């Protein structure tokens, strides 16, 4: 709020107090409602009577306009300090009438304006509390004391708004002995109030009530006061609740007949229950539950509400216990039945909750009577005169209780709603409650579409016919939809949404609910009633298992009766008319309700026309529209089959209100729809996205605005720009996801290698492309159109999208794009368009499309790829003809070329490095040979520092002498041509592929992958991974792509990082020397003692060994023995001096040299296990063999422990 120094302006305090004093320095800033800082002002006791003229120094909550408000001239302005001082003075003479009047009319009301209460006021307040007799004054005293108690340490949480209270410190010198802090006064206040709250004197019981209420304002973090409060509350309840049973009062407040004792008891019980509700819920405490349940019978309706609120809260955690405790009350004539007739709406609402929780409690299966009672009560609440209660009962029946509801519960809720019947309790069974019981039923005159009044003394009507719930609910909703109250309309819309949600959940779970059945029949046919009587009062949980609700024979249906379907359509019709409400929030709720009620089979036209009509209203707030879009999203999640319909609807938002739609929200919708619509729907989903591109292209002479000829938004330049952004987003989306939608990837292409070069005929190529994959071909066609017909920004994005598709797709798509881009760069396309293109005088760029600079690098990459592929084919042919093996040098050049192209390609879009073959599929074999030879990780390639610096090669010869052959190699795999049994892994292309697949993220048992589905699903394909990256890439999808060409939100670098961190070498630091640094190796060697850990590792090795390249350059030491590579040593080469029985069990890890080497202990080493050996520094040793970072050594003479041989860490020994 604005504030002014101007005397004519007013503040809230000015208004309340008096006219401002001219010349007042009251200047303060004020935020809305109040963040204003009052300058510190202190005054001394000696100044008390000299009131400072500059006083009101507070927030000016009011605007200048308020200065017009006539002020009472007789009043004086008051500052906080003046008020405080007045309070001190008046408190001392509180017994005088005049001072009481002053307090009531001047001091307290003005003090209430401030946002907090200064603790220095506490002494005066406490004095008033003790001495004042006037009820009003006392009430104020309680009010302010409660505020002092409630204002915890953090001012910001305090509830009170208003003018910020001047700094307490500034006022602290009010006290001659120093500042008064909260810590000083709190104990005093609490002590005084506690004493009063415990006072059993009947005459002061209103004060007792007020004191207890004030005490409950204390922050519950204070355990002392909490336990004290429990004590007081239970003390009160012990006395009043038990005694209260004797005298039952039906009368609510205001009944004249209530005797004094009962009144007192009721008051105290209310305040105790109210206090108890504010105390932390003591779940395990039987006394707590007992008292709360007892409170349901409280004579005070608000007390009942609090009791029910507590009990329903406890019921969530312990339904059985609560059900047993409440059981008696639910019987006819019990307190729960009485609640039905309490006037307090919230009590009945909590009753609905409680009944719902208890009726579905699993523990009370054996107590069907109880369950039936609760269910009947819940159904009866559908007839409640208050919409609030009725709607609560509906949502409970629908399975929506809190945010954690499951779709099974929702589906069961829908089944229940469509099948259950409300049978009214027999009035004759409860004569004492006759009149009241029937009131509820009367409320049910739902069948007459009228909301019951609540007649108290109506004669008992005849027993009512049972009613199907669905009919009651529909009637009630229809009547609510006719309400003129906006909140009722809004709430009804929400309930319709909930119905739609539950119905959708039932569809999703495959529940067959015949909506053509006629519920009336259920009650008209006596037999059927009987058969279905278990539904009424029955077990809603049991409904869950019922996947099919048997429809009634149609022959029984009376023609005039409504089926569920027709009731639903009436409801939707009612919702549709509600869209005419002038309140946007109600309209938004209505649209959401319609979305939820839309089923996949129905025509979407009505929904679309309604939304289209709504969206033409320019006044819609953007936030509401985006909320509706999010509802679309939720609707899709509930029914993925509706992806296409929903995308169709989303198109309306994109085209009608592009300026208000958050393109991120829309893209999210596109994405989830694309991913969720299943393989069959992807094509259609992509088509639905491209509708945005189908919008009429801008005319050449009005490039910006006339994007949408037929839409109102075209006149709005902002909307036109927004539409353009949306188009960009759609183009980008298409480029990024076309391959996913079409399931076409270069690295999974079905086109045989080399086909591309044989398909140079453009027409044939296009024909082949569209016949093989119409989705991708269609996307390409649209993008091609965008690349020359859109605005410049769109064209750029389209070119980027095209290159993305070209890079990711196999042939002939790549070639198709290549040809198109080449033509585009040369301006050939413009040639084609020349006739249609009317220049507006603007230079369109030398190339005609203005895209040359963008396209040139793209073409260059494709050129390079094709050249390299060509060259590779030539080279291979040469080698084949000459029957010549590829030399390492040639392979290196090939690999370098591969890496270079990969780097280039990665500049434009993301490709999986481990799979992508810019040199064509034929290069895979050669590349793998080179990779395996040099231990290059397929994912990181030369980016791996170990590879770049040559360490990877060094490691092989110097450090990693132990390699782990695959333990679980399939015996059926044929041996490689070199005939080495142990070399089975060395040139196993299939295995390498598996490695690549693993490294590329397809692995089925990759540990610690966050996405469960990626690891648990057996058939995880690249599509799934792709989908995952799509889902995760919600940021950075801005259509404003960088010209550098990286159009993917997941930049290459970041992807590499994540991939390598998940799958790369760092995950398994020591097991693969070829991919790790020395440090990692060393660390592992120190950590993993072979004797103790091998058992655990063997499993890991199994999987890892399969997945890792294992072709090893053998070390010189190994060469003589094993020719080239692996040492499998399957168990038959037992170490000569096995220190323990475990060593033979890990034979595959061991390398056996021909003879022992001499070594020397570098450091002292203490054995950690039986098979380890103590070392003394400088000791001479014989190294017999090495096992996984450990030497098996033999001493020349036994050590202190008498052992002669054992394992020691490699690093402790120099050889």
């Amino acid at each position, binding site marked *: *709020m604005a504030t002014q120094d101007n005397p004519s302006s007013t503040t*809230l305090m000015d*208004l*309340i107090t008096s006219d401002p004093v001219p010349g007042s320095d009251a200047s303060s800033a004020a935020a*809305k*409602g*109040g*963040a204003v800082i009052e300058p510190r002002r202190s005054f001394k006791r000696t100044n008390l009577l000299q009131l400072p003229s500059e006083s009101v120094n507070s927030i000016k*909550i*009011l*605007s200048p306009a308020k200065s017009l*408000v*006539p002020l009472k001239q007789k009043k004086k302005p008051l500052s906080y300090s003046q008020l405080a001082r007045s309070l001190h003075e008046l408190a001392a003479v509180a017994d005088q009438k005049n001072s009481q009047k002053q307090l009531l009319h001047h001091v307290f*009301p*003005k*003090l*209430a*304006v401030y946002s907090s209460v200064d603790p220095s006021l506490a002494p005066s307040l406490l004095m008033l509390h003790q001495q004042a007799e006037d*009820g*009003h004054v006392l*009430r104020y005293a*309680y*009010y302010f004391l*409660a505020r002092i108690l*409630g204002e915890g340490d953090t001012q*910001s*949480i305090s*509830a009170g*708004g*208003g003018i910020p209270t001047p700094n307490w410190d500034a006022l602290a010198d009010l006290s001659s002995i120093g500042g008064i802090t909260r810590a000083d006064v709190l104990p005093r206040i609490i002590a005084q109030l506690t004493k009063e709250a415990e006072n059993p004197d009947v005459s002061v019981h*209103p004060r007792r*009530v*007020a004191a207890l*209420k004030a005490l*409950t*304002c204390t922050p519950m973090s204070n355990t002392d006061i909490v336990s004290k409060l429990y004590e007081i509350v239970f003390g009160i309840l012990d006395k009043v609740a038990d005694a209260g049973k004797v005298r039952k009062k039906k009368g609510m*407040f205001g009944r004249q007949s*209530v005797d*004094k004792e009962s*009144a007192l008891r009721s*008051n105290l019980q*209310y305040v105790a229950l109210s206090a108890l*509700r504010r105390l932390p819920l003591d779940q395990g405490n039987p006394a707590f539950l007992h008292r709360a349940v007892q409170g349901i019978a409280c004579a*005070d309706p608000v007390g009942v509400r609090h009791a029910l609120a507590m009990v329903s809260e406890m019921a969530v955690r312990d339904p059985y216990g609560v059900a047993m405790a409440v059981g008696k009350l639910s019987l006819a004539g019990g307190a729960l039945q009485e609640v039905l007739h309490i006037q307090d*709406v*919230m009590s009945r609402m909590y009753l609905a909750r409680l009944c719902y929780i208890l009726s579905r409690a699993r523990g009370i299966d054996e107590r069907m009577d109880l369950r039936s009672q609760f269910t009947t009560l819940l159904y009866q609440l559908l007839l409640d005169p*208050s*919409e*609030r209660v009725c709607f609560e009962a509906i949502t409970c029946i629908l399975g929506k209780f809190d945010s954690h509801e499951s779709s099974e519960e929702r589906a069961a809720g829908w089944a229940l709603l469509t099948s259950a019947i409300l049978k009214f309790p027999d009035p004759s069974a409860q004569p004492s409650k006759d009149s009241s019981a029937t009131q509820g039923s009367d409320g049910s005159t739902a069948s007459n579409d009228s909301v019951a009044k609540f007649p108290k003394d109506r004669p008992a009507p005849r027993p009512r016919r049972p009613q199907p719930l669905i009919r009651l609910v529909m009637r009630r909703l229809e009547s609510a939809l006719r309400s003129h*109250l*906006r*909140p*009722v*309309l*809004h709430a009804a819309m929400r309930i319709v949404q909930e119905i739609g949600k539950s119905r959708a959940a039932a569809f999703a779970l495959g529940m067959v609910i015949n909506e053509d059945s006629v519920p009336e029949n259920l009650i008209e046919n006596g037999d059927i009633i009987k058969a279905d009587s278990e539904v009424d009062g029955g077990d809603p949980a049991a409904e869950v298992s019922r996947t099919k609700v048997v429809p009634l024979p149609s022959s029984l249906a009376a023609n005039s009766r409504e089926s569920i379907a027709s009731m639903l359509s009436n409801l939707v019709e009612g919702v549709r008319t509600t869209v005419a409400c002038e*309140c946007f*929030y109600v309209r938004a*709720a209505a649209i959401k309700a319609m979305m939820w009620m839309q089923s996949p089979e129905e025509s979407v036209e009505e929904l679309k026309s309604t939304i289209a009509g709504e969206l033409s209203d320019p006044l819609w707030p953007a*936030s509401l529209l985006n*909320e509706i879009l999010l509802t679309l999203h939720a609707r899709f999640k509930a029914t993925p089959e509706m992806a296409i319909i929903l995308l169709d609807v989303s198109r309306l938002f994109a085209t009608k209100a592009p300026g208000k739609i958050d393109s991120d929200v829309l893209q999210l919708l596109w994405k989830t729809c694309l991913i969720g619509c299943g393989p069959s729907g992807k094509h259609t989903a992509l088509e639905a996205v491209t509708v945005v591109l189908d919008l009429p292209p801008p005319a050449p002479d009005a490039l910006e605005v006339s994007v949408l000829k037929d839409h109102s938004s075209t006149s709005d330049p902002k909307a036109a720009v927004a539409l353009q952004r949306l188009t960009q987003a759609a183009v980008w989306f298409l480029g990024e996801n076309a391959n996913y939608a079409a399931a076409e990837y270069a690295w999974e292409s079905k086109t045989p290698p080399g086909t591309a070069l044989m398909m140079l005929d453009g027409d044939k190529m296009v024909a082949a492309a569209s016949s093989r994959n119409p989705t991708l071909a269609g996307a390409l066609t649209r993008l091609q159109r965008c690349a020359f017909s859109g605005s410049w920004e769109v064209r750029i994005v389209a070119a980027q999208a095209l290159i993305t598709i070209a890079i990711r797709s196999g042939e002939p798509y790549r070639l198709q794009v290549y040809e198109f881009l080449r033509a585009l760069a040369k301006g050939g396309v413009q040639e084609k368009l020349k006739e249609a293109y009317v220049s507006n005088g603007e230079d369109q760029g030398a190339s005609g499309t203005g895209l040359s600079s963008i396209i040139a690098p793209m073409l260059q990459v494709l050129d390079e790829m094709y050249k390299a592929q060509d060259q590779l084919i030539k080279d291979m042919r040469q080698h084949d003809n000459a029957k010549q093996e590829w030399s390492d040098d040639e392979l290196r050049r090939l690999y370098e070329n591969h890496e270079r192209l990969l780097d280039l390609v990665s500049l434009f879009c993301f490709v999986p490095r481990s799979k992508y073959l810019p040199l064509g599929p034929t290069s895979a074999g050669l590349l793998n040979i080179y990779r395996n030879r040099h231990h290059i990780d397929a994912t990181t390639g030369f980016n791996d520092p170990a590879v770049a610096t040559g360490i990877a090669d060094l490691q092989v010869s110097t450090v990693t002498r132990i390699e782990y052959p695959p333990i679980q190699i399939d015996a059926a795999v044929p041996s490689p041509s070199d005939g080495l049994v142990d070399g089975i892994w060395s040139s196993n292309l299939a295995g390498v592929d598996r490695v690549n697949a693993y490294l590329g993220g397809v692995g089925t048992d990759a540990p610690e992958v966050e996405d469960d589905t990626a690891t648990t699903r057996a058939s995880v394909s690249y599509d799934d991974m792709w989908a995952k990256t799509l889902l995760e890439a919600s940021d950075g999808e801005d259509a404003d792509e960088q010209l550098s060409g990286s159009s993917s939100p997941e930049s290459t670098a970041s992807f590499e990082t994540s991939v390598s961190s998940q799958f790369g070498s760092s995950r398994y630091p020591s097991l693969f020397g070829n991919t790790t640094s020395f440090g990692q190796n060393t660390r592992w060697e120190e950590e993993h003692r072979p004797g103790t850990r091998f058992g655990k590792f063997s499993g890991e090795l199994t999987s890892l060994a399969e997945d890792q390249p294992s072709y090893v350059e053998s070390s010189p030491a190994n060469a003589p023995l094993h020719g080239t590579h692996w040492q499998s040593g399957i168990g038959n080469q037992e170490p000569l001096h096995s220190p323990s029985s475990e060593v033979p069990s890990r034979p595959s890890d061991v390398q056996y040299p021909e003879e022992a080497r001499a070594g020397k202990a570098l450091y002292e080493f203490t054995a950690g296990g039986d098979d380890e050996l103590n070392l003394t520094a400088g000791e001479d040793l014989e190294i017999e063999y090495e096992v996984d970072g450990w030497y098996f050594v033999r001493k020349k003479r036994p050590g202190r422990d008498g052992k002669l041989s054992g394992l020691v860490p490699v690093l402790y020994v120099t050889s």
Partner: protein
Amino acid sequence: MLMSVLFANSSGNVLLERFHSVPGEERLHWRSFLVKLGTDNLNGARDDELFVASHKSVYIVYTVIGDIWVFTVGKDEYDELTLVEVLHAITSSVKDICKKAPSERVFLDKYGKVCLGLDEIFSQGILEHTDKDRVRRLTRLRPLVE
């Protein structure tokens, strides 16, 4: 939970506010949001005409009595219909305290009593009394039932 009750005058200036579990920084947003709602809808509205709004899962019900706008904000069980109850309790009490639909002047004159009344109607985000007679009795420190 009843998150907020806010009174403003017809120019959109906040006169009285109560928050529960709303951090200080969010209160500013709420104030401006509510005042904007009032400015957009309440000018020319009838006394006690109910308006509704929602923001995610938070509901707002508001009305005007005399010169005073009254907003209630709630969530969970305090949905739009419960807020109608709350609002009704508040407006009937305020009218009771001010003797009629209050002008701004009268409302400010009775500011203290209104605060006491609100203290009885709700506290700590929980609705207490909805009956104006009970509220009146309690603000005078008289027994609820005699």
